């Protein structure tokens, strides 16, 4: 249906944003690309008093690398992640994940910061941030603070952001680790029924510090500790993959959702584990 009646204000700088958030208080809702928010308005899943448009704030744009980290502004578009050479070179996991998000017309407007702030448990980018051990740079009128991605997603659609705090950027450490993402969807561009973003180091065929982050199987991106422990120090082979698949039983407690029962999600997670880990044996795999 049509959107509800609401107010609209543009913030052209962070100073204007803090001032607008002060003025509008709890009625304020920040809008960036709006590709999720505006759809929820059509369903009356949210009814903000006033939308504060942050897309004109230059400080939230752009990306850069200093050799240690890749910093991506919150307003980085999914389409940028798909095609930018700097992202491809330094964060191939994000370059691989972005084409899985919705469709070209939505990737041309949807933002990285928006996806992370919305924190959909079936979305790709939150899981990638946890798998990459990224840092979320939050900003408010009081200044910036750094939040590890693993502590950022706190509950279903909930994050560690305080009221009147926004995501300014994310920092991805440049580790050169291997990384991959796979997901299973009913239709191209849908949210995943289940997905897996993984990073690991291969040292003479042995797996070191694997991070397996499943999405679409819980309230937040699920970092599978037992499966990681099962893989640590092992050689990457069928037996190792099988051990990780078995250990997953302790890591995942998927809810029943519209796609199916928990056991179906567990099955999909095991399938994804095999696909991703076998992919690392493929010499074409790129470094993270």
């Amino acid at each position: 249906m049509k959107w509800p009646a609401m107010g609209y204000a543009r913030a052209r700088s962070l100073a204007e944003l803090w001032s607008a958030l002060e003025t509008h208080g709890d009625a304020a809702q920040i809008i960036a690309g709006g590709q999720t928010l505006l759809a929820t308005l059509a369903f009356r899943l949210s009814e903000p008093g006033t939308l504060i448009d942050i897309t004109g704030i230059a400080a939230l744009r752009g990306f850069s690398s200093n050799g240690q980290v890749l910093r991506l502004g919150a307003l980085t578009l999914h389409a940028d992640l798909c095609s930018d050479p700097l992202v491809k070179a330094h964060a191939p996991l994000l370059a691989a994940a972005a084409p899985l998000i919705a469709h070209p017309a939505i990737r041309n407007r949807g933002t990285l910061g928006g996806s992370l702030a919305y924190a959909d448990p079936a979305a790709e980018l939150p899981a990638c941030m946890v798998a990459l051990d990224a840092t979320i740079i939050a900003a408010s009128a009081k200044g910036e603070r750094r939040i590890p991605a693993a502590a950022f997603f706190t509950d279903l659609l909930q994050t560690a952001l305080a009221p009147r705090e926004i995501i300014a950027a994310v920092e991805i450490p440049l580790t050169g680790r291997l990384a991959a993402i796979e997901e299973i969807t009913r239709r191209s561009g849908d949210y995943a029924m289940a997905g897996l973003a993984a990073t690991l180091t291969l040292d003479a065929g042995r797996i070191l510090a694997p991070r397996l982050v499943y999405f679409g199987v819980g309230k937040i991106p699920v970092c599978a500790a037992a499966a990681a422990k099962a893989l640590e120090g092992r050689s990457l082979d069928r037996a190792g993959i099988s051990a990780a698949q078995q250990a997953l039983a302790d890591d995942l407690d998927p809810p029943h959702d519209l796609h199916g029962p928990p056991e179906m999600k567990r099955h999909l997670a095991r399938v994804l584990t095999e696909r991703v880990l076998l992919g690392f044996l493929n010499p074409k795999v790129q470094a993270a």
Partner: protein
Amino acid sequence: MIPITLTVNGEKVTRHVEPRRHLIDFLRLDLGLTGSHAGCEHGVCGACTLRVNGKIMRGCLILAASLDGAEVVTIEGLSESGEVADLQAAFVARNAAQCGFCTPGMVMTAAELLTEGGCPTRGDIREYLSGNYCRCTGYQAIVDAVEDTLRARGATP
């Protein structure tokens, strides 16, 4: 009401819009440009696809109020420019439009694929168009039309 000045199909337009007005209603109801279709109005069907600042977007997921200074091209503008005359002829030749409701969005999306270069396969074409729903054709004829145009423009898989 929010004042906006933007360019629509090359013409400068100044209006006052309600914040709840999305771009498609702005174009259809305020400007009388009815080529962009309002389908699902929540970003799923793709019938409202058009160009904003040179890239395709969902018109139903954009506040008109946010478009001050933007450059919008609708199917009317794209048609008049002649940029997709060959694609439109291929749609006719391949019978890729039946009821026609999805066609403006399909053409807008396919036009962006045509500008991206490379040599898309049929699978790539389907993937690119996957956000545009057609309830008549079964897509085969649409993919045929886009593929014909790509090949005619020199892209070979």
